[in-house]
């Protein structure tokens, strides 16, 4: 690569075109690009010569960063992409230069060979060809110097050339504005930035799809007004006239905390884009590896009503992410993966590489620029607003923080696991609320049956709200006071009601009849039993481990924040036979 020089530009006096004819091809290193000022200076030097006095001035300067292409002079996109350091607006293109989409092409125009050749509209001359940009094999964009609008469907030919096609829509005429955009700040590594305008990635002129700039900071001219109309569609919250510049590079092995910035280019001139990216030690997994973590699924058909268990009940979330049982560090990387540079898969109809916040909430929800679905720090996922996560690895049950759609930060409750250790498979283990500190008496009046529960009911109603430290599923023991005690499995509860997996075997009548729910009421299948509970308050517990062949073990304990561990003492019963 060599620096682009003013001598690499051709001034076509006949067609009033300034064109880069050098050998350098994009992407252009910033250091190699030519400043608009240098081009302007060369033009001014050239046009004050005797031989050029009969030619109109191609350029004027308003400020050191604002230049105009005047008197109907033309510059093409490929040439624009070699320039930096100043904005260019055109004056005098209206009804002089027609910009048109051409499709149905069998032969593309050859640049610059076909420049200046007569363009025919339905076989009648309509102007001269100034530039043709190939979109794909049978589509292109033409710039024609002509005063007459070219109508949709016109058959286009070029004298002395095989170039052809059909006008795809009416031609447009008016002035262009290329605003100068440059980035500043600290970039981690040497990433390639990319930009979007009008919901489309900025790319090289012609068939090229990558950007025309090289790695690192950029200083480029971006077409933001064409034929007098600002580009943009106001979609995804990006207003007309705005562009977004992203750094979402995955190539750095150290990982990068990303950044992006949205800037209004409508005013023209030189517009700054501040960016700051840093090392992301939580994003070091190989791209190919993360690509396989497809069990992390983002659903966008919200709102999703979810209760994080913080006691505030259900809240709405826009998107719901099934973590697939993965630890949240992996979830974090996967979510970055689907929004990284080059990702075109859609998230709620937006390419992942362009995704910034919940679609439709741009400008309302604060974006998390370093990772659009949420950041990760200290082993904890901080979800972006409107993002619900679930089904993460149990170890990460508390390692996240969310923001519901209303903007309220939500934290999962603190878990208080009850662990009964030193058991063996087959041991029957029960841990229940006791009637008092150091009491081994089970509180069988933990609940009072509410009303009459008929035989065959699939629920048990109690008189008090069921506390959050109740296991989400388990067993409820109901006492037909003075008569019997039945053990039913429940699959869930809400407010005052336990939902049963079975039906009641008899009738219960409150307030005589009572019930209680042991925290652990199972048979061990390994050397320990763990029941995770949401910590609500300290609780007095009584624990029992029994199995034929050992002496019954019973002890008391207190459930505190952080949980409690009870170590069973299995003493052989040498008496039984």
């Amino acid at each position, binding site marked *: 690569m060599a620096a682009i020089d003013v001598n690499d530009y051709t001034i076509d006096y006949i067609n009033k075109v300034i064109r880069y004819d050098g050998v350098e091809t994009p992407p252009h290193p910033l250091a190699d690009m030519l*400043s608009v*000022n*240098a081009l*302007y*200076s060369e033009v*001014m*030097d050239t*046009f*004050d*010569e*005797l031989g050029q*006095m*009969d030619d109109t*001035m191609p350029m*004027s*300067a308003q*400020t*050191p960063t604002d230049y105009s292409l005047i008197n109907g002079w033309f510059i093409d996109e490929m040439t624009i992409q070699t320039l930096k350091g100043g904005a260019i607006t055109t004056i005098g293109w209206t009804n002089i230069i027609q910009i048109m989409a051409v499709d149905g092409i069998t032969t593309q125009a050859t640049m610059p060979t076909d420049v200046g050749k007569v363009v025919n509209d339905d076989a009648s001359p309509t102007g001269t060809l100034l530039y043709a940009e190939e979109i794909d094999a049978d589509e292109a964009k033409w710039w024609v110097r002509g005063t007459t609008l070219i109508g949709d469907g016109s058959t286009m030919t070029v004298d002395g050339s095989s170039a052809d096609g059909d006008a795809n829509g009416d031609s447009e005429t008016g002035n262009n504005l290329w605003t100068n955009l440059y980035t500043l700040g600290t970039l981690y590594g040497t990433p390639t930035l990319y930009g979007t305008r009008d919901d489309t990635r900025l790319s090289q002129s012609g068939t090229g799809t990558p950007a025309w700039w090289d790695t690192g900071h950029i200083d480029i001219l971006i077409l933001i007004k064409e034929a007098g109309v600002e580009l943009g569609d106001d979609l995804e919250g990006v207003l007309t006239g705005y562009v977004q510049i992203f750094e979402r590079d995955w190539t750095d092995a150290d990982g990068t905390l990303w950044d992006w910035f949205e800037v209004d280019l409508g005013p023209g001139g030189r517009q700054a884009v501040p960016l700051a990216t840093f090392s992301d030690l939580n994003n070091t997994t190989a791209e190919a590896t993360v690509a396989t973590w497809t069990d992390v699924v983002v659903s966008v058909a919200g709102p999703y009503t979810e209760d994080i268990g913080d006691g505030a009940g259900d809240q709405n979330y826009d998107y719901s992410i099934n973590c697939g049982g993965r630890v949240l560090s992996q979830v974090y990387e996967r979510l970055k993966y689907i929004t990284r540079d080059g990702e075109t898969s859609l998230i709620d109809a937006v390419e992942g590489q362009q995704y910034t916040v919940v679609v439709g909430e741009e400008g309302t929800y604060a974006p998390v620029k370093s990772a659009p679905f949420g950041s990760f720090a200290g082993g904890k996922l901080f979800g972006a607003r409107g993002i619900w996560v679930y089904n993460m690895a149990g170890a990460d049950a508390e390692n996240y923080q969310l923001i519901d759609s209303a903007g309220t930060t939500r934290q999962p409750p603190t878990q208080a696991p009850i662990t009964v250790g030193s058991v063996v498979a087959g041991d029957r283990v029960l841990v229940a609320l006791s009637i008092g500190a150091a009491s081994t008496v089970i509180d069988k009046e933990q609940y009072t049956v509410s009303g009459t529960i008929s035989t065959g009911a699939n629920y048990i109603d109690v008189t008090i709200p069921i506390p959050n430290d109740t296991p989400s599923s388990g067993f409820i023991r109901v006492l037909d006071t003075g008569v019997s005690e039945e053990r039913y499995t429940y699959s869930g509860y809400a407010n005052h009601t336990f939902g049963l997996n079975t039906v009641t075997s008899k009738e219960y009548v409150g307030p005589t009849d009572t019930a209680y729910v042991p925290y652990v009421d199972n048979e061990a299948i390994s050397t320990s039993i763990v029941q995770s509970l949401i910590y609500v308050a300290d609780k007095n517990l009584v624990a029992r481990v029994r199995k034929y062949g050992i002496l019954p073990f019973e002890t008391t304990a207190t459930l505190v924040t952080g949980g409690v561990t009870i170590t069973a003492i299995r003493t052989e019963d040498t008496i039984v036979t």
Partner: protein
Amino acid sequence: MAINVDGTTNMTDVSMCDSTTGWAGGMSQFALDTGVYVQGTGSLSGWINATTSATEYYAITSVDMSGGDHIYVWMFCSGVVDTQALGGYRVVLYSGADYINNFATFYVGGNDTHGTGWQLMCVDASASPDLETGTFDNTDVIAVGVAFKTLTAAISKGKEYINNCYWDAVRYGTGLIITSGATDDIDYEQIYAVDNNNTYKYGVIQKAYSAYVQTGELTLGGTGTETIDFIMENDVILFPSNEYVDADFYSILPLGNTTNPTYIDLSGSYLKSAGAEKFVFDMSGANINTFVMDGCTLDNAGVCTFTTGQTITNNVFATCGLVTPAAATFTGNKIVNSNVSSAMLYPTTDNTAELEFISDGTGHAILISSTGTYTFDEHTFDGYASTDGSTGNECVYNNSGGSVTINIINGGDTPTIMNGTSASTTVNNAVDITIHVIDEDGNNIEDAQVAVYQTSGDTELMNEDTLSTGIATETFNFVSDTAIYWRVRKSSTGSTRYFPRNGTGTITSAGFSATITLAEDTIIQ
């Protein structure tokens, strides 16, 4: 030496009408009247009652009057004569031996052409008579008579009538010759004083309402040894409408000689011919030592001819015949609505300037009859054909039969051309295009590239660097107002660079001049 009015060289008395001797005819109560007369001691008279009188005539020795002699006679009717068309006043000329049967009657005036009182009647013996009895031969005029036709009856005094028709001082000729001393500054008033003297009463110069009325030719000086020192200053000279006089009868004719001076000085005066009969203004006589005419208006004149050594400035020639300045200094004059096909015969010498030609839509302003190069110094043209052609109304008619080059100078209009047979004309109107280039501090900028182009067709008119004076200039052949656009650029490396400037303008007959201030380009690298 005082003024001398010669009324005999070009005028011949027929009868001063101070007696009835020599008169014959049949007018009632024909008699000498010594109480009513205009010249001498009496007039002749008779009466008629609302009818046509008999003719009273006076026999003379046969005279050939075909050379321009006009009959002058004063006539007066105390009643009311009939109209001219019906012969209110009549002059009768007889010819030949049988003159009683060969005479011509001219209806020289009437109540519609002449006022009351004594009126000078003048008729060219060569004019067409209103009545001709027999055959009148103007080369053999032997008697001059008068007659009246009145609408009113003569006043009777008892059984007698009082005469109501009078005539006096009958002459024939062409006019007066005026001479003077070399420093007399004689003028129309002095000539009139002599003319109007009862002794003469030629009637060539009359006066009414402070204006002089000239009937005939006024010769100033002579070609022998005469001297004339004549001035005309703020006078009004009228030449009356009279269909019975010759077309060249009215004239002012200076003549010079090699012995004594002829000084003619006209200024601020107005000379007008009231009718179709133009007055000839031929100042081209030889040996006129000084002829100056300034600020005068010649209205409805015939040919106006001048010669070398004369100075004709700031005059108006309105509805005149061909004006021929010849080699006279001819500047600041206006030639308006010429009544001939070309208003002026352009001199071959460069002695004209600042002439203003105005056309009523017909005729050329200038006739060029000789090939060569001519200078049009600040001449302007208005009302002429706007393009070259052959309408007859082009500014210039080149009838030289060859090549003519016209150089327009000092901002004159570029004339349109009609070329006669085998003629061709090149018009050069060189005006300056000047652009002065300065910086914001007013300092001259050297080596600024300055270009000027014609808006129509983009023809390059100038493209050069400014000199150390900051000026770039070129000449331009002006034809008509020309729209231009200009460009000034200086942005070469190695010296101060400036923002370019451009603009538009118009090259007029005065050229184009502009001062352009360039602002330093502080943006450029």
